[in-house]
């Protein structure tokens, strides 16, 4: 017995996953620092990612409100902006350089810090060991490093906002030559270097995290937890981690070359450039090369953001409609297909860069192929809730909202994936509408669904339901009100990233629409603050969880104590005997994974 236990302890990094019996008696002494700050407990690290993500979401969201003010009311002056931002908002009007800085930081922060680190970082950390039945990650120390590299990346990014010349302002894609030349503008000075350094740190963080997620899923599952008995969130996190591990290093190589071009005079991306009448010596570089390196990450990144949301939504819909997930293997297959295709479609971001039209048509085909696994998933979500006994918890509502947004945003992807239609639509508000709905808001909905569903596991308390329902309905209606009209603007040719469109008579028709979008964004942002209030209030004052398994779910995390310590299970880890989706079977509402299959049980799965 003890020999087996020691083996287990050795596997899970001896020092920190103590002997289960010692665990029960709180044997090792934890200080405040080791418990809440430099913690190696995957649950605490998950919470750290979540809270840091929330802080960044507030900053990124606030920036979008600021530039929406400019877009909705370009003629108006807001003296309060000058109070806060000084010369960046001279006369209460957002200056062009500052506007680009806002757009850039908004994009970077939400894509990377919130929807990558805040989403996968939180839920991969929280759910992987709990749902596969492990005491912690494969390497708790690396896991801790992963968070602190992320934190450091955040510090660098935040400091760039306080630099005199402003933060990076080359767009979240940081295309050279603009981003490679200091002379090109204030935002290309120190801010851009800090952006690159911050991204390098972020990449290290997400690699350390991703390595751990993969190793934990493949090596640390409890007895009986075969790969096809894993809950779908774990499969989603697994593919997410693989995408990250294979694509982030390519972005790193692109960023390193850009740092060289910026600081050491190389010409990887630069060729034949004249700035302010000065002829630069750079020759033979290729700006398109950067786009290839960037989008080789950039496209998988879209799925890095989306897949965890998909996985959690699958789980939450099944649990709350009290029905097995429809098409478990089809869900796996489609996740796999999406992960493969994610690497083969990057050039659809580059249709108008002079890409060979024949090559373009190949990328069109591969891009449109993504519609197949996506449609399978949508079909399976709908058939999962179809005639289910749905409990409309806030998590369920957000999960259903996710499906709705994924459908509407996915359909416009079919437009943009066609290289011919893209000639008209590229760089318009149509693109903004598409990716915000399908990737931004949809993933946010998946994240909210996850927070509402697993908050009781994280903090042993519930979030307030009244605030949660307000949060859902305002966000749901608001998101469509904000982004739906942008499709019309985009089809009419309104460009994205423009500070002031009053110069175009043809776009003046949209002035009132823009005002409406701005007002709704402010309302939606306010409701997010309500959620943040609910989150922190409920950590301390929320209704206490009294039962071990409040949602009546099958997965392993609900077999742990209500407030699990480091090591998750007191005593031994439970053994798994069945898949996680036995809901409404043989007249029973749910059958946990830990229950052995009885002889007279009907066959399913």
């Amino acid at each position, binding site marked *: 017995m003890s020999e087996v236990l020691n083996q287990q302890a050795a596997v899970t990094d001896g020092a920190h996953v103590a002997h289960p019996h010692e665990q029960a008696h709180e044997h090792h002494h934890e200080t405040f620092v080791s418990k809440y700050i430099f913690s190696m407990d995957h649950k605490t690290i998950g919470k750290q990612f979540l809270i840091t993500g929330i802080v960044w979401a507030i900053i990124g969201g606030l920036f979008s409100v600021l530039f929406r003010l400019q877009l909705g009311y370009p003629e108006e002056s807001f003296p309060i902006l000058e109070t806060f931002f000084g010369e960046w908002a001279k006369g209460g009007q957002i200056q062009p350089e500052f506007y680009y800085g806002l757009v850039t930081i908004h994009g970077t922060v939400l894509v990377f810090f919130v929807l990558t680190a805040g989403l996968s970082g939180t839920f991969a950390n929280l759910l992987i060991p709990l749902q596969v039945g*492990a005491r912690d990650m494969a390497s708790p120390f690396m896991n801790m490093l992963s968070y602190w590299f992320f934190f450091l990346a955040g510090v660098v990014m935040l400091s760039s906002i306080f630099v005199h010349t402003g933060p990076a302002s080359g767009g979240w894609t940081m295309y050279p030559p603009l981003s490679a030349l200091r002379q090109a503008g204030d935002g290309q000075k120190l801010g851009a270097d800090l952006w690159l350094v911050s991204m390098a740190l972020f990449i290290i963080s997400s690699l350390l995290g991703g390595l751990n997620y993969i190793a934990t899923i*493949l090596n640390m599952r409890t007895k009986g937890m075969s790969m096809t008995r894993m809950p779908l969130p774990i499969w989603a996190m697994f593919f997410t981690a693989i995408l990250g*591990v*294979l694509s982030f*290093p390519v972005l790193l190589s692109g960023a390193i*070359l850009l740092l060289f071009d910026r600081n050491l005079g190389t010409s990887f991306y630069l060729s034949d450039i004249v700035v302010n009448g000065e002829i630069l010596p750079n020759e033979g570089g290729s700006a398109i090369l950067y786009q290839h*390196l960037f989008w080789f990450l950039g496209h998988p990144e879209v799925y890095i953001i989306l897949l965890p949301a998909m996985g959690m939504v699958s789980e939450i819909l099944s649990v709350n409609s009290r029905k097995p997930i429809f098409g478990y293997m089809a869900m796996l297959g489609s996740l796999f297909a999406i992960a493969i295709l994610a690497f083969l479609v990057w050039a659809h971001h580059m249709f108008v860069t002079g890409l060979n039209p024949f090559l373009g048509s190949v990328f069109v085909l591969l891009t449109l192929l993504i519609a197949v696994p996506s449609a399978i998933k949508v079909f399976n979500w709908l058939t999962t809730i179809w005639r289910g006994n749905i409990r409309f918890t806030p998590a369920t509502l957000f999960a259903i909202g996710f499906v709705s947004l994924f459908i509407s945003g996915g359909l416009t992807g079919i437009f943009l994936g066609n290289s011919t239609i893209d000639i008209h639509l590229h760089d318009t508000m149509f693109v903004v509408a598409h990716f915000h709905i399908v990737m931004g808001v949809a993933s946010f909905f998946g994240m909210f669904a996850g927070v509402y569903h697993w908050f009781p596991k994280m903090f042993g308390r519930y979030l307030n339901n009244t605030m949660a329902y307000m949060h859902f309905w305002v966000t749901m209606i608001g998101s469509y009100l904000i982004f739906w009209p942008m499709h019309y603007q985009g089809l009419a040719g309104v460009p994205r990233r423009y500070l002031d469109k009053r110069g175009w008579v043809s776009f003046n028709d949209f002035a009132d629409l823009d005002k409406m979008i701005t007002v709704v964004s402010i309302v939606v942002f306010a409701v997010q603050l309500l959620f943040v209030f609910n989150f922190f209030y409920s950590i301390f004052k929320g209704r206490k969880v009294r039962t071990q398994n409040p949602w009546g779910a099958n997965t392993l995390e609900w077999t742990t104590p209500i407030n699990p310590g480091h090591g998750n299970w007191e005593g031994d880890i439970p053994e798994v005997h069945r898949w996680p989706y036995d809901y409404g079977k043989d007249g029973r509402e749910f059958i946990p994974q830990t229950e052995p299959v009885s002889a007279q049980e009907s066959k399913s799965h």
Partner: protein
Amino acid sequence: MSMTNKTEQKRMHPHKFTLWVAIGSLLMMFAGLTSAFIVKSNQVNWKPVTMPVWFTASTILMLISSGTMQLALKSFRERVMRNYRLWMLVTLLLGVAFVASQWIGFQELWSKQVTFQGAGAGQFLYVIFGLHALHVLAGVIVLIIMAIRSFAGAVKNYSPVPVEIAATYWHFVDLLWIYLFVFFLVVGSGQ
């Protein structure tokens, strides 16, 4: 609810597995860089680069160090700790010598006007070889820590896993170097 202490399919130590995934990840970074090289070599004004002799010396040092690393691992498995320490030190020194030979090679190239100016294979050489050298240095640091532990460690640890992980990593940077060296020899010299 039955309990268990077993995990599914414990074929490989999770840390080892993590290293293999990390190697895949590092390979993607160098694949990204070398494919960038190929894309850019089709641009105008491309200048090929001839590698200095010092890099051949680097190759030899790297190959020998892989052998000594393997000997260290073998000694550790046979519990001949004296030999293990000896071979670790030799590997470590060879690693340092490798980085030094790279540095000298860089200086020689620089003095031959292969600089950051203009367009050509030389710029990539500094970046790619430099990044590889950083990975060798990381390996050297790991070896130093392990050497200190084996000399001064109060706790006797006979688990071969850390040594095996270090050895796998070391062979990886060795093979990576061979790939990069041949790549620059064949593709980088142009024509």
